[in-house]
């Protein structure tokens, strides 16, 4: 048992008990989860931080891609995979979101912001890509 592992377990236990702590190791950055369930609430509560309220993304030294009118969303497996596993600057969310939460937000984004992909994904579709 390494020092780091011991510390992580201690911090993890404390986090479970509901008291926020200062991360001492990288893994501790990610304790917790998101309470919202509907696709719209997840988009507005999390995703729009980077992809922006209008889903048009943003540009600085790098950029956050637009999800508005995004042909990459045609195949639902693509956004599911990116949300679960991340890609480049996009963090992975598989430890944060339930299968249903991912399905809900994918269904929301694929039917809003000028996207009209009406085939619904299910929690089972998400589970298969974990």
């Amino acid at each position, binding site marked *: 048992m390494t020092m780091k592992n011991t510390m992580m377990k*201690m911090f993890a236990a404390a986090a479970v*008990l509901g008291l926020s702590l200062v991360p*001492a190791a*990288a893994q501790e*950055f990610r*304790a917790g989860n998101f309470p919202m369930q509907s696709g719209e609430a997840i988009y507005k509560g999390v995703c729009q931080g*980077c992809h922006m309220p209008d889903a048009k993304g943003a540009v600085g*030294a790098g950029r956050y891609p637009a999800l508005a009118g995004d042909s990459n969303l045609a195949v639902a497996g693509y956004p599911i995979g990116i949300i679960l596993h991340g890609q480049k600057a*996009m963090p992975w969310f598989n430890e944060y979101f339930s299968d249903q939460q991912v399905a809900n937000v994918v269904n929301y984004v694929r039917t809003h912001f000028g996207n009209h992909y009406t085939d619904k994904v299910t929690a089972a579709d998400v589970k298969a890509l974990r």
Partner: protein
Amino acid sequence: MTEQNSEGMSRRSLLNLIGTVAGSAVMYHAMTEMGYAKESGYTGPIKLSAPPPGTSVLILGAGVAGMVAALELRNAGYKVQVLEYNNRPGGRNWSLYGGDTYTELGGFTQHVGFDPGQYLNPGPWRLPYHHYGILDYCKRLNVALEPFTQINFNAYLHSTEAFGGKPQRFRHVLTDWQGHTSELLAKCTQQGALDQAVTKEDKEILLAALRNWGALDKNYQYAKGAISSNRRGWASDPGGGLDSVPIPSEPMAMTELLSSRLWAGLTPGLGYEFQSTIFEPVGGMGMIGKAFGKELGNLIKYNCKVIDIHQDEKGVTATYIDSRTGGTPQKASGDWCVCTIPASILSQIPMNVGAPMRNAINQLPYESALKTGLQFKRRFWEEDEHIYGGITFTNQPNAMLGYPQWGFFSKGKGVILGAYTFGPNAFMAAAKPPEERIKDALEYGAKVHPQYKQEFDCGASVAWHRVPWTLGCAGAWTDERRAAHYNDLCAIDGRIVLAGEHASRIPAWQEGAVTSSLDAIGRLHKRVMAG
């Protein structure tokens, strides 16, 4: 950790025993005593021999890593040039002052209204004493340091779910936790429950130690009285003259303290990086970046957005445009390149490196973090509650309140770090406009300090996923990703080497940037000298 002591008990068993019976704070204390801690690898200024005349290095990024590389390579005799996206040196070494304007991604603009001398450090705010590298650069660059108090015994631990939502003084929680757990362990010891684990002789020593550690009375009980009050504080302090008799304070009940979970707030400050002495630069963390920038002068070209990095057998060329106005692409070249651009940005810039380094860069998104600073019209935490620096922890989404460590007893305004969070709470904050984050921090803080709303003056908030030049606060390594990609990220690829906190094992700390940079330029120099 298999070392056995003379009684045949492994240290791990002893730690488990202490942890089980006495709680993690005691366990961590014991572990620290046993020396399972490592120091920064910095061993003093790097010594580089003179390179072949005219050898040049292009450095991308004027954060701590980039400027360490620039300073040391220049001193060794290299021709160096630094390209920086921002209009200032420092990168994440950064303080926001009154008069500053900050526009985050999405165009949300804040005009900071802090008084002179007040500031928010959106990024790093602490310099642990064992971060030898960054401290040495402070010394060399004449950056004045002052102490940063991590644990303030008179600050609070707060939970909306415990003690009716009333914040508890750290000294009360600490003393009562140590007292109650020591009493329990003493009982176990006296009742023979530990006879298998400790010798008869050690049992006596253990009892004496528990009495000392827990502020127990002569009967090994943790009770109201002078012994406990000398540690947790008195209901009425002793004074001079008449009516000066001290009145002991009443310890919290064990069950209430246990169920409050506040004991979890005792341990953050015990972490190696949070132990005394911690420092902060006088006037804000950004003073370090400013000092580097002054030292390097016109070696740094500001407002450069790198859009392409290309190497061949002769050198490395970066193509860049003006980060404010765009315009015609320009080029800068060097025989070699130290690239400190965060992986989150670098993953989006064309750069002809091999698959191992490219994969490593592409597998490193950045963590979420939030900092919100709140300026108040008066320093009520000092005037009303006698809190001078340090941190109050809360179970609310703002996680903590960091009191200003400067300007004690001054009559003017003061800035509290009103929110400092990671993970989901930081993601959710980043999805809100700055003014809502400030409003949230006010709501949470008002649960700890009722004076909050009446005394509020103005605020500033930085959600790191909306920072245009990092897209997050620090490289999001996991053990698995580090095992798969870390060495490939750090290895020299042709004429390019990467540096920064993301290329270190001290993630999110400036010491990581310093030691990464020194390691990178040391290896690069060897390559240069090998011809």
